């Protein structure tokens, strides 16, 4: 097989979408006006497909911190954390995150993806066993693959299925690494962490929770799902990102294990890449403080989530299983997904289009997400755009979507 032959199927699948006027893959956003508004071509759109949960990308204190850093520290570190890439800001942010998460150690990475690669891929190796939720993010799968550990999947959000698989492993389960996510990025549902923590207490193992979508979103202080469910002491490692609630780019891992800091000397994705730019670090430090000081942002975020979820349910759409700031509308085919996605832009709303196999259920979904920065009026406009789609000529797209597989959803 020639080197590029393996892409033939992909080329065929994507051809119809790429030839259209607006492509959902790598959409060019021409201008960004605020955390919630931008322009795509001729269309001014409400951004309802981001991960900007608290809307901090334009927060004045974050912008100011980034500007100050740019002025004083330059545009980049040009080096690894292990060499010339550890500035005082990097060290300070690690300490501030350790304090926030009440963990002994925090290690920063250049992206959330690298945080998973650098943590899971280093902690586990050949001979180890990883048990992961089937719907875990690609970075977790890649990390497991990189590690060479034995990878066992359990059914999504099914604690009993995890237990069954651990019992099957017998003694080996005691040293296995269990991996789940706080909020899952596509369906917006969250892990049954209380039950999983209980299983871990009974059968052993280590528990890693990727709180990428739940930091700043869940928990009294915004520490994520584990805080929300009061099981933080059962979690061995917390993974997170700076590219969602904290509004920049980068990732981190936090743990109470005394040996955790040693990862710095063994983790290739930590060592062999440049460290996050100083301006990103500065804005994240400011964003963390805003997140701590303004819990009302979280209240507003959830009000918006409930508002949009209810609006879409009232219209008769088939949405995700739990109310959260990630609200997917499930559609039965890629064509219908594409139809919805393009029409929504014409009606002034940008959402994410997700197609199989990236969709956990094999369906197409338009993934809406809300921000604390959305106004109630903007949420009404998003609902209004979906309502307009009900009346579009291709009516069958909507009526069929209503009949999409419902078990497990709503």
């Amino acid at each position, binding site marked *: 097989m020639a080197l590029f032959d393996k892409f033939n*199927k992909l080329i065929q699948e994507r051809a119809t979408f790429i030839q259209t006027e607006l492509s959902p893959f790598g959409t060019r956003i021409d201008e960004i006006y605020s955390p919630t508004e931008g322009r795509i071509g001729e269309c001014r759109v409400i951004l309802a497909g981001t991960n900007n949960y608290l809307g901090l990308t334009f927060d004045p204190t974050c912008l100011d911190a980034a500007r100050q850093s740019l002025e004083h520290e330059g545009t980049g570190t040009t080096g690894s954390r292990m060499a010339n890439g550890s500035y005082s800001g990097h060290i300070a942010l690690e300490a501030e995150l350790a304090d926030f998460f009440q963990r002994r150690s925090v290690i920063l990475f250049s992206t959330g993806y690298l945080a998973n690669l650098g943590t899971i891929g280093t902690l586990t190796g050949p001979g180890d*066993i990883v048990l992961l939720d*089937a719907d875990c993010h690609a970075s977790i799968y890649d990390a*497991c693959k990189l590690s*060479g550990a*034995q*990878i*066992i*999947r359990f*059914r999504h959000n099914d604690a009993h299925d995890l237990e*069954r*698989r651990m019992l*099957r*492993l017998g003694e080996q389960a005691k040293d296995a690494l269990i991996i789940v996510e706080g909020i899952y990025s596509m369906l917006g549902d969250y892990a049954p962490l209380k039950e999983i923590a209980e299983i871990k207490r009974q059968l052993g193992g280590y528990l890693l929770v990727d709180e990428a979508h739940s930091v700043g979103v869940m928990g009294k202080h915004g520490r994520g799902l584990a805080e929300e469910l009061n099981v933080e002491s059962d979690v061995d490692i917390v993974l997170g990102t700076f590219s969602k609630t904290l509004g920049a780019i980068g990732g981190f891992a936090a743990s109470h294990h005394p040996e955790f800091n040693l990862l710095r000397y063994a983790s290739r994705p930590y060592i062999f890449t440049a460290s996050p730019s100083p301006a990103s670090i500065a804005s994240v430090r400011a964003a963390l403080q805003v997140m701590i000081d303004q819990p009302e942002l979280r209240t507003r975020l959830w009000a918006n989530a409930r508002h949009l979820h209810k609006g879409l349910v009232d219209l008769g759409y088939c949405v995700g299983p739990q109310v959260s700031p990630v609200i997917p509308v499930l559609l039965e085919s890629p064509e219908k997904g594409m139809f919805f996605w393009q029409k929504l832009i014409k009606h002034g709303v940008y959402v994410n289009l997700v197609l*199989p*196999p990236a969709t*956990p259920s*094999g369906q197409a979904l338009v993934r809406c997400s809300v921000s604390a920065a959305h106004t109630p009026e903007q949420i009404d406009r998003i609902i209004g755009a979906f309502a307009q789609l009900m009346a579009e000529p291709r009516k069958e797209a909507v009526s069929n979507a209503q009949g999409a597989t419902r078990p497990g959803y709503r």
Partner: protein
Amino acid sequence: MVSQEMILERLFVYLNTTVPASAPVRPDIELVQELGLDSIKVMDLLMELEDEFDISIPLNILTDVRTPAQLAQAVFSLMEHANGAVR
């Protein structure tokens, strides 16, 4: 006692319910390139086999698997390894 043929049989049952009826399932057909299974479906298939035969099958075995026959062989080897001779 589980034989390699029994594993292949179960695989066929699963594949026949998962892929379009027009595609004939053979032991040497390529799961991804010919049958059009995506990576998630192949992993789901392993999960089904784990429960069917009550064993742990790590995803790692997929590295060298392209066809149902190869998958049946890999799972059988795993069972032999785990339980001694299973035939």
